């Protein structure tokens, strides 16, 4: 059973105190966007063997959403950070790259989302 540290209140909570919210950093598509964009947003989910970013809510605690970067194979948790961000913190990405040089973090290669476009 996993333990994760909530970055909002600092409690290291066990899995039963948390609620999983699926893949993190989805960009919402809505009216005016194409069927393909909407389909990808609504249904296409990553299922990596390795580093994954996922949403968790400290449901039985402070109630806040955060994001955990976790290895789906070893369950190693590289870090947690508040959900109020469009991309993982740079220092966390650097730490993951150092630990898992082969991890696919290409979504976050560019310094900012704007640069990526």
């Amino acid at each position, binding site marked *: *059973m996993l333990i994760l540290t909530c970055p909002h209140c600092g409690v290291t909570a066990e899995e039963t105190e948390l609620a999983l919210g699926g893949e993190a950093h989805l960009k*919402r598509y809505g009216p005016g966007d194409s069927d393909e964009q909407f389909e990808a947003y609504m249904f296409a989910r990553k299922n990596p063997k390795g580093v994954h970013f996922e949403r968790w809510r400290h449901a039985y605690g402070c109630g806040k959403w955060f994001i955990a970067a976790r290895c789906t194979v070893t369950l190693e948790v590289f870090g947690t950070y508040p959900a109020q961000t469009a991309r993982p913190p740079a220092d966390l990405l650097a730490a993951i790259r150092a630990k898992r040089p082969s991890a696919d973090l290409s979504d976050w290669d560019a310094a900012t989302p704007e640069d990526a476009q």
Partner: protein
Amino acid sequence: MSARLSRGGRLIDRTKPLSFRFDGRTMTGFAGDTLAASLLANDQMLVGRSFKYHRPRGIVASGPEEPNALVGLGEGARFEPNQRATTTETFDGLTAISQNRWPTLDLDVGAVNDALARFLPAGFYYKMFIHPRPFWKHVYEPFIRQSAGLGRVPQGGDADRYEQAYAFCDLLVAGGGIAGLTAALAGARAGQRVILLEQAAHWGGRAPVDGAAIDGQPAADWVAGTVAALAAMPNVTMRLRTQVTGLYDHGYALAGERIADHTPGDGRPRQRLWRIRAGMTVVAAGAIERPLSFAGNDLPGVMLAGAVRDFVVNWAISPGDRTVIVTNNDDAYRTALALLDAGLVVPAVIDARASVTGALPQAVRARGVRVLEGRAVAKVKGGKRVAGVAICAQAGQGAVLEEIGCDAVAMSGGWSPAVHLWSHCGGKLVWDETRSMFRPDPARPPTGDAGQPIAVTAGAASGALTAADVLADAHAAAGGQGPAPSAAADDEAPMEPVWIMPQGAGPALKAKMWLDYQNDVKVSDVQLAAREGYESVEHTKRYTTLGMATDQGKLSNINGLAVLSDALHQPIPATGTTTFRPPYTPLTLGAIGGEARGEIFQPLRRTPIHDWHQAHGVEWEPVGLWRRPFCYRRPGESSHEAVNREVRNTRERLGLLDASTLGKLVVKGPDAGRFLDMLYTNLMSTLPVGKCRYGLMCSDNGFLIDDGVVARLTEDTWLCHTTTGGADRIHAHMEDWLQCEWWDWKVHVANLTEQFAQVAVVGPEARRLLEKLGGMDVSKAALPFMTWAEGRLAGIPARVFRISFSGELSYEVAIPASRGAEFWEACVAAGAEFGLMPYGTECLHVLRAEKGFIMIGDETDGTVIPQDLGLGWAISKKKADYLGKRAQERSHMADPARWRLVGLETLDGSVLPEGAYAVAEGTNANGQRLTQGRVTSTYFSPTLGRGIAMGLVRHGPDRMGEVLDFPTVGGKVVQARIVDQVFYDREGAKQDV
């Protein structure tokens, strides 16, 4: 025959004799006995029957690895099957029965299977019971069901109580032998928070039995001193009778504590499940001795050499006057010495090794015991107990050289580290060729949340098999500072792997060599599986059932995979092990359930008016975890009659509904209106203060997830009512979007569902009741339909909403929960003159269905969009966006052929069955009738005196007047006409008065 020795027994208290019963016979034992020891003391060598062949079975081990000695323990509400006699403490009054035999243990009819054994090899069931097909249901399945299962299922409730507890530590030590004690002490001295758990009722494990000397003291004295030292340290918690059963992700461990198994009925919980979070777990679980595979190795009286030693030293048990020892290693000679020390006879030690010259064998020789080198057991002689052994050359095919009479055989095939806990969470193993064992690979431990190792093994669990090695390994495992406790180095000669005995045994012998005693898997079965193509050890396991019994193959797995490797002509590591899965030993369902029984099985949510309902004939309906009144039955009334009465009374006079469970979410802030416009399909930002509006909420996937009335409280505050089941879910939904998508919007949400009791006052007399309670102007002019007002009613602070879910004149009154019962009772008292009756959820459903109002969960099922339900009027065309808008534009969502809501009226006035489907012409690819609609809500309407229903029908609203066929269970077809779903007061005149 086995018996109690007159002297010795380090764990028993001869001043405390005990009386117990086994299969109805009264026997005696001593305090400190295990049931296995007590049974042997009474010469009860036959303790059970094997699962498949009903072979006679005796005690083979002395600990949790025991496969044979399973008994039904206790009586009545404390009966429990499949309890291991070797880990059951004997207590005065204990009752046990043997299993898998009929009519008696001695005279068992099922034993005929043994005579047929050559016709019942591995895979027999798969091969036999497949043809002819029709036999399966009526012949084979009943037969298999009859013979399946081990032990008797307890009947009725469990008299005991159970609980769970959480614990946290830096160092969890699993096992209280000398390795565990050493590791615990090392960790504790370094200031770590240590939890030390031992499955047995005593500390020290095997070392005192083996006669080791530690730091110059006898092992037992060293153990006592170390236990005392640990007990005095405030950072150490120690528990006996507590088995660590599993190690899981991120250092989570489960342990089962047997608190009152040996003191039943003393008022304490019987068992406690510990849920432990440990920084590091030291697996000091010891090692398990392996049987040797020789013909007849399953007869009662054939025991593991280490177990024989335990029984002699710990419990003063003689396994018989004459015990032959069969071994491939030096350790078994310790058993010879223990037997000799107890004054018993060891006619010979049969050693498979060609040359035996170690210190221990020499010591045994010096006591005058024959040591037969390069020899093997050709066959054990005897029926229900050992009578002797026939001896042959290990290198040969089994030609008998000699026979020796004996009462018992002590066998040792070497030791396997108990690696289970290490392996549960991913720790890897290596094959140790010199000692023929899988042992933990320290370089590949299970890892935790930071990628760090979460387990280390200590002592025999690491593969260290001598006291000196055990102590050094355990000290290092816990990061001990300074010197480790020391023991004299044992001079043991190397063991020699022996997987079958003799090595050239033919089919007849191999068919009598047991690997898995409980499930009756023999060497011949594993070899057959290999011949039939089962190359994976996991497949062989399932085909033969090797290791699938309640002991999970603790004795059989290594021998079995060695035999498989040999049959496949590959080295043992190439075969590998099966997966080690928790629990190590069984946990009771009682412990897993913990305190969750009876009244506290699950939270049951009660409204502030719960007790009044209970006292007034309520019939409860579970709605999520809530209990809501379904109806209130009067004496002599059926539920159906009560509901009809409640409906008629509410339509004609006055009804009262406890609506406290409705969700009440306050949404406040400068961006609250904008937020609600995104959440609801219609506009909420334009709702004037003081007014109410019905709203729909969809997921971003377009589907309808909740509905309710929204009231605007102030310029920047809205109160959103949700469905009963939606309160927590919609609250979470709001927080999700606010925190994860629109985190820069200034909105706060608070869930005030339970702050208020809410009472719906419904019916033509509703206004008169509120006027009588007094305090607020509730006239149509002051409080028109779809508005709200705040004030006091009957002196109680109240917020009154003019909303209606019934089509009647209706007020929903919110009062503080602490005064909810008071307000309800005030209404009941004041309402008597208006004919007030309380009504329940079923009446509510009928009232809303008569009006054609949808219900989330009836008309919706996660695949329905508001447009399907004719709720287009509640979808804003002006908004650029709301959750679900884009999804509702997808081609399938906009398809005119979607099933849409209509009313359904049976031609004969009957009530349509719930969930019935309307069939269409033709069949699908599977030959099933095509469908064109289904019933979503169906009730008897007392108002109309007939059945009414709503349903979703393809092109439904365009097909008014058409008649559909609804086949019902049993073949009858009910016909119903498509009509408008508003069955009553279509103009809405009654609610707006």
